[in-house]
């Protein structure tokens, strides 16, 4: 990951990053299809994803990956062309194929063992069987029979027209019966095989048989992806003697022209080049343009069959339309000699003989594809890939900057400079800028949780397969944004919890039916923002927590005393204890007894909390509540027994000055305060923290009403409120360990460390345990 890395390796890293995204698109697309999405664009997206993986893998020589992707792509191409219906079985196979594709990528990346050859081969066979199940021969399939090739060619041209037409939402296309050897005009009047080049001087003698004809019709997308048709034509010209024919017949009138569409197509006859070389040129743009490859021998045969018909049809069409100048000259031919130095095909077309009448129209035409890449680049939000370490370093430095700025400001105040002095004014500007930089940097790290959610359908499929249960995963709120670190560290706990939900939560299909539920269980994974935190909910409609059993196991493992009286909530929480496992047998999926313990710890490490709500027979809901960012938060700076503390603003409801009459004592130590006609517990923070042993009269301090995640209210008693401030969160665990009642630390303007209170833990502990002022001394 440093500068010394081989540039090729660096590109490969980017390729694999792209693969991750493509796999996400692939899976999302397939799931959408499974869910009943019939949009052609969805199918296209799936095809593109597979194709791009294949294209990139080919460039890096990842043979296994290419082979698998190719078979996958072939089938997807059938689906895309509408020759194969995407039924339920098909989608299931495709989903499994996407899993294997992911395995292939992981293996190629060196992250995983080589793919199970039998599994891969099995799926290849399955995919091929599905592909073969069609009457038609796939054009993209490696068919070696030249007769079949010739038959397929005409239809392919039509299909390309069809796909292009629908993608551009143009006039509906009526399929025309295929007549082998007798090409039909599609609605564009696009005739790939009509104008043989025999009339041209540069045409090689009839020894055309050892060449290839490529009909190449770029779509707007291809230009948007920064590919240039001219360069590809030049590349073709290098392969052998090439004859390029421009077909501008699809050019609309200038007013109707969209700057981001591709209207031009070319027919290139190449003599002396192999098929694979020719196909390689289009490797990276395959899905962004329509291409057909035909052996020249077959072209000659079919072209001779009906040349007169073609010309007549074309003239009729040209006359029928309102005569724009360009319509008189729909096709311009030119020849490119193999080296073709400096002659970009598109502008060169203007210099070809017999083009004078079209001189006014053509510049606009040739400008269209050339201009489109820059236009598109400007309109689509450009993105860059940045190593996460660099962003993190930036965030750390900005954190230091904020602290330093605050310290400087405090020093200036202490030095007694007038507020109107130049230094003070400048410092205020600096503060604004610092805050702005901080906000901008934090925004860089905000990421949708989608990247984690996308990995889950596969997991659910696999676990469902292993457990023999039928599971439907429903996700919601994938676009909820949260700090990148949080996103990354969510994957593991969510994985654990989904596994548990399926393995332990859901019943088998028979049990479910017996219980009057649908045989297919539902697991729901949802993300949402709630009061400045992100909440992740994992719920299932299974059997719920078996409290009897959980309690029994906890007692038998010595985790709780036999006679302990536990509330339902407390019993549910037993599953988070280290070493607790309810699985009778240790399975591959869950049941090693580390799951929920690890989940809770990793959530706590993120400053989050996990709660369970379970109702027997109906299912369980696990709720994770996490901070949006791990770096800064808004806090209220308070003091308690000469110590400065920070209370998270998100937990604070309001603050008030307690009157002695509002405070009532309950028993020896505990007190409550009247807040909006309700008694809420009053917690003397300094005493709970062990900063002070003797209680002070509540009326001498300030009470801050807080609310926990669970909605429990309490009043925290401090000596004074210093103010509200955004603080940079510093982990105590980096160099020390978790401290009960303390969420983290921060550094204040005076350079000293202040502790950030964990309001939930404070309230919960104060409620359950007697206040022990001597705790600090105890150990």
């Amino acid at each position: 990951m440093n500068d010394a890395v081989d540039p090729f390796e660096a590109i490969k890293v980017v390729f694999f990053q792209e693969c991750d995204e493509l796999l996400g698109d692939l899976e999302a697309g397939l799931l959408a299809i499974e869910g009943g999405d019939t949009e052609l664009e969805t199918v296209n997206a799936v095809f593109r994803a597979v194709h791009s993986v294949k294209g990139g893998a080919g460039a890096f020589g990842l043979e296994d990956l290419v082979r698998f992707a190719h078979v996958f792509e072939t089938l997807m191409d059938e689906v895309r062309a509408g020759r194969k219906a995407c039924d339920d079985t098909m989608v299931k196979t495709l989903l499994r194929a996407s899993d294997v594709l992911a395995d292939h990528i992981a293996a190629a990346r060196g992250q995983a063992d080589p793919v199970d050859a039998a599994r891969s081969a099995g799926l290849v066979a399955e995919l091929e069987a599905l592909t073969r199940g069609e009457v038609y021969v796939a054009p993209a399939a490696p068919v070696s029979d030249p007769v079949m090739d010739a038959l397929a060619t005409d239809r392919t041209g039509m299909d390309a027209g069809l796909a292009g037409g629908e993608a551009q939402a143009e006039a509906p296309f009526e399929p025309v019966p295929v007549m082998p050897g007798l090409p039909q005009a599609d609605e564009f009047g696009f005739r790939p095989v009509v104008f043989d080049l025999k009339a041209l001087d540069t045409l090689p003698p009839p020894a055309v048989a050892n060449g290839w004809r490529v009909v190449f019709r770029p779509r707007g997308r291809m230009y948007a992806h920064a590919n240039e048709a001219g360069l590809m034509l030049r590349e073709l010209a290098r392969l052998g003697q090439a004859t390029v024919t421009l077909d501008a017949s699809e050019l609309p009138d200038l007013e109707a022209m969209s700057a981001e569409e591709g209207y031009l197509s070319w027919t290139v006859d190449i003599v002396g080049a192999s098929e694979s070389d020719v196909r390689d040129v289009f490797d990276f743009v395959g899905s962004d343009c329509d291409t057909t490859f035909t052996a020249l021998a077959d072209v000659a045969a079919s072209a001779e069959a009906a040349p007169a018909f073609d010309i007549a049809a074309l003239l009729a069409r040209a006359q029928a339309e309102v005569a724009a100048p360009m319509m008189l000259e729909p096709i311009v031919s030119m020849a490119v000699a193999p080296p073709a130095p400096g002659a970009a095909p598109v502008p060169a077309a203007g210099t070809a003989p017999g083009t004078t009448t079209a001189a006014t129209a053509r510049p606009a035409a040739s400008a269209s594809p050339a201009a489109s890449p820059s236009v598109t680049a400007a309109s689509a939000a450009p993105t860059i890939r940045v190593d996460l370490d660099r962003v993190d370093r930036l965030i750390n430095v900005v954190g230091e900057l904020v602290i330093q700025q605050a310290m400087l400001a405090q020093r200036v105040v202490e030095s007694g400079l007038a507020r109107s002095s130049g230094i003070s004014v400048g410092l205020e500007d600096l503060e604004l800028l610092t805050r702005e930089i901080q906000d901008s940097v934090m925004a860089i790290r905000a990421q949708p949780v989608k990247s984690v959610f996308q990995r889950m359908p596969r997991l659910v499929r696999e676990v469902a397969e292993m457990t023999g249960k039928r599971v439907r995963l429903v996700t919601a709120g994938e676009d909820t944004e949260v700090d990148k670190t949080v996103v990354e560290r969510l994957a593991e706990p969510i994985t654990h919890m989904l596994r548990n939900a399926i393995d332990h939560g859901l019943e088998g299909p028979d049990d479910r039916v017996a219980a009057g539920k649908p045989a297919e269980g539902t697991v729901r994974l949802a993300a949402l923002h709630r009061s400045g935190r992100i909440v992740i909910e994992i719920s299932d409609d299974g059997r719920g927590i078996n409290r009897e059993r959980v309690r029994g196991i906890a007692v038998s493992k010595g985790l709780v005393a036999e006679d302990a009286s536990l509330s339902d909530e407390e019993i549910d929480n037993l599953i988070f204890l280290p070493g607790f496992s309810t699985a009778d047998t240790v399975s591959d999926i869950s049941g090693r007894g580390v799951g929920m313990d690890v989940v809770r710890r990793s959530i706590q490490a993120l400053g989050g909390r996990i709660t369970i709500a379970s109702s027997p027979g109906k299912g369980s809901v696990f709720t994770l509540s996490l901070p949006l960012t791990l770096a800064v938060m808004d806090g209220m700076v308070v003091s308690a027994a000469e110590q400065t503390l920070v209370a998270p603003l998100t937990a604070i409801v309001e603050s008030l000055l307690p009157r002695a009459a509002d405070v009532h004592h309950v028993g020896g130590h505990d007190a409550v305060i009247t807040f909006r006609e309700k008694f809420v517990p009053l917690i003397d923070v300094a005493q709970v923290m062990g900063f002070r042993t003797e209680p002070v009269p509540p009326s001498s301090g300030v009470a801050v009403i807080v609310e926990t995640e669970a909605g429990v209210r309490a009043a925290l008693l401090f000596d004074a409120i210093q103010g509200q401030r955004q603080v940079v969160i510093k982990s105590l665990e980096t160099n020390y360990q978790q401290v009960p009642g303390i969420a983290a630390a921060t550094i204040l303007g005076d350079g000293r460390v202040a502790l950030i209170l964990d309001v939930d833990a404070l309230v919960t502990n104060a409620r359950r345990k007697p206040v022990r002022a001597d705790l600090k001394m105890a150990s």
Partner: protein
Amino acid sequence: MMMMNETPSSSTTASSSTIRELIAFRIGEQEFCIDIMSVREIRGWTPATPLPRAPGYMKGVINLRGAVLPIVDLAARFGLATTEPSARHVIMVAHVGGRLVGLLVDAVSDIIQMDGATLQATPDMASDQVKAFVKGLFALEGRMISLVELGWIIPDVEAQAA
């Protein structure tokens, strides 16, 4: 406790015949030393923010250029009298495990070289608390210096709960 004893003894055998550079410091009348490679910097005492429910030897945390640094009163940790820190006390910032920890001592006295062969085992008379940290004794110019093992300076959460 078992684990506490394991670490010092196993590393004693590993280092028995090598020359090591150590940094010596003073707590009250006693002299101790630790491996110089584990010390990152030495700085003067700055007031620490106390931690709630922390053991008595945890003086609290200070800001070390943006990082939160826990301060351990070594005297209290070794079972000597608790230090009342003042401006002349010294904090040695040391790597302990994967963490950075500030060690509060009276003064840093010397940088010394020690031949591992001259190291003598901690006598059996020493208390468990001393044996947990002092992995050996050696003589230098008529003084006795205890070699300190830092591994268990800050207990893990489990150890503290037990």
